[in-house]
């Protein structure tokens, strides 16, 4: 075996890809050539350094959940369903248990009716549509990383920007003292009307706060849809819908803060 050939085979050797005959031949060659042996050792170290020190980027758990949910039951249907569809199924264990589509749909319907009846205020159709709309809006913004049309942590920038484009002036609170950082605002179309979306952040969680004018007051309601928490209430002439993957109690804190501050703004 020539040195050139031995050099070329070193990589396959340290990677365990050399066949037994060549391995023996190479090892005999290495025994006679200390410099090549040293090179082989260095190559091993190099390989080991990459294995030990290079970042292994594991997928975030929520991404896997999201993709699981997005896998259609009918492969031919492909991406025909809107993106939020997959998110609107009940939590994992139930869904995994059986053909999730039909049981899940009826479960969702039952849950929805129960919820609406318990609420006893809104028309079911309208309520469900708003739930779907705010979720879809939040998911769209998250998927595309297009969280806001106006990026600002200053409520005095966000509020006029929104007011200039809407028929109402949404209350925009600075809650940074409570660790909810305003990052911007955007416009969207929910329940057949243009609405304001205030975007807050806590740690890495993005919280969308949808605001539009309503007449009735409404106490806080919480709802969870496939990993997303939704908080809603109506106060001082404005409906607030909060959507986020933030923990429920934290989202509840934000709802409380917004309710307190909405009077003052």
């Amino acid at each position, binding site marked *: 075996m020539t040195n050139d050939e031995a050099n070329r085979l070193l*990589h396959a050797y340290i*990677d365990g*890809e*050399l066949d*037994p005959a060549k391995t023996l031949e190479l090892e005999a060659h290495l025994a006679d050539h200390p410099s090549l042996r040293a090179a082989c050792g260095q190559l091993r*170290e190099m390989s080991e*350094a*990459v294995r030990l020190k290079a970042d292994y*980027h594991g997928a975030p758990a929520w991404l896997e959940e999201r*993709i699981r949910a997005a896998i259609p039951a009918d492969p031919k249907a492909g991406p025909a369903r809107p993106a939020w569809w997959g998110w609107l199924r009940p939590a994992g264990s139930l869904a995994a248990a059986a053909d999730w589509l039909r049981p899940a749909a009826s479960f969702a319907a039952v849950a929805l009716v129960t919820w609406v009846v318990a609420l006893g205020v809104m028309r079911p159709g309208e309520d469900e549509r708003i739930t779907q709309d705010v979720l879809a809006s939040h998911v769209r913004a998250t998927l595309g990383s297009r969280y806001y049309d106006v990026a600002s942590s200053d409520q005095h920038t966000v509020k006029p920007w929104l007011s200039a484009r809407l028929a109402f002036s949404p209350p925009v609170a600075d809650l940074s003292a409570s660790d909810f950082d305003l990052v911007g605002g955007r416009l969207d179309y929910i329940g057949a009307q243009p609405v304001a979306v205030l975007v807050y952040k806590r740690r890495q969680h993005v919280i969308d706060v949808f605001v539009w004018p309503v007449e009735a007051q409404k106490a806080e309601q919480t709802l969870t849809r496939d990993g997303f928490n939704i908080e809603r209430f109506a106060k001082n002439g404005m409906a607030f819908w909060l959507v986020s993957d933030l923990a429920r109690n934290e989202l509840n804190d934000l709802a409380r803060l917004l309710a307190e501050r909405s009077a003052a703004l």
Partner: protein
Amino acid sequence: MTLAADFALQHETDPASLHDTDSAPPHETLSERKRRFEQLVLPHFDAAYNLARWLTRNDQDARDVVQEAVLRAYRFFDGLRGEAKPWLLTIVRNSCLTWLAANRPAETVGFEDGAVELLPSDEDGPEIQAARNFDRRMLNEAIAGLPAQFREVLILRELEDLSYKDIARIADVPIGTVMSRLARARRLLAESVRNASSISGTQVPK
């Protein structure tokens, strides 16, 4: 040169295009199909993400590409033959390439042109300095800085521990090209870390 791996490799450039049929096992319901997919393919979700993350070098882009790739894999699940991991990574890799070609065309240069690395090169000798003291951050930056076709084989070999044969299938090149790209990748990496070390003044024994 003789390798243990089988040279007569059947390349499945894009499993989707080769197996564009929808012939599920006769009595499989859709939920069974979905469950089978989750059992076979989703355990390799981290590997899919790791590859996409190293190829796009960006979390957001990796998420988008992986999501698209996994849904695509599900559509063409019936084309799965053999092991799921290289099959899934082939789809992820092709999705990355498509994505890069659309968004950062400069980074795909060299991907499809394996002939260059097949030329014998003395520079690919094993003169690599001791890697024991490589600084972690520096090493990661050096890998990220490798041309994509070298970065790809290095990640598949060292982080995913795949055989040359699987890597050849995923990267759609002959096994000889996998070897030469890997050799080049390790050499470029060593040079890059050495340069970075000398700039920052860190002592790396030669």
